[in-house]
């Protein structure tokens, strides 16, 4: 089979859609975390040491 018969060319133009015609994959949403600092961010209590 050959290419579809669409006839002779008449004009050439540029098309730049405002919206993307491709439904692209959305990046995965990050999992929700509970409010508050993560363990790595929690303040560390200073260690009590005996004075010399």
């Amino acid at each position: 089979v050959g290419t579809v018969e669409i006839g002779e060319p008449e004009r050439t133009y540029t098309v730049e859609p405002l919206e993307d015609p491709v439904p692209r994959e959305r990046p995965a949403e990050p999992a929700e975390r509970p409010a508050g600092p993560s363990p790595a961010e929690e303040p560390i209590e200073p260690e009590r040491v005996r004075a010399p």
Partner: protein
Amino acid sequence: VSAAPDYIEPIVGWRTWLVVREGEGFRLRSVVYDTAWFPRHELIARCLHRAFSLPWRRRAGHVAPARACGCGIYAAREPEEAASYLEGRSWADALSVHRVIGTVSLWGRVVECARGWRGSHAYPKRIYVPATRAPYWLRAERAEEVALALTDYGVPVELLEADSCGPDELVAALDAVAARG
């Protein structure tokens, strides 16, 4: 500074695609050339005439589509033109499980012709899966299974009820869908 575009909406035309099994899923491929249409990625045209020419007859490459060449991604203005590709043999009959028809968005550089367009960028807009059995030479899969798998493309997919898989019957079925709105 780039020139302003002539249009800000894609051109919408009609195409027929082969459906080919790939791994666990199904993919669209072009009927005439060995070209895969990947879900959620536009197809970008390149001129294949140079690749298929004899070495001593090759001309310099050019941006596709060129007005003076036949290159580019084709879309027909009327579904009848595209539907003629629902029958007839293709390079990939051994791989195909079905043929589907639908609308396609074209954008980028577009050559408008008397009965259709050739574009530089394309993506399916809506896919119609004939619910009738595929032509006898294809390894037919259930149309419902094909339709479900093609939803990977992220565009509307519809089963097209028709009395047979002939182009005339399917175009009549498309008319009925359009009349329903």
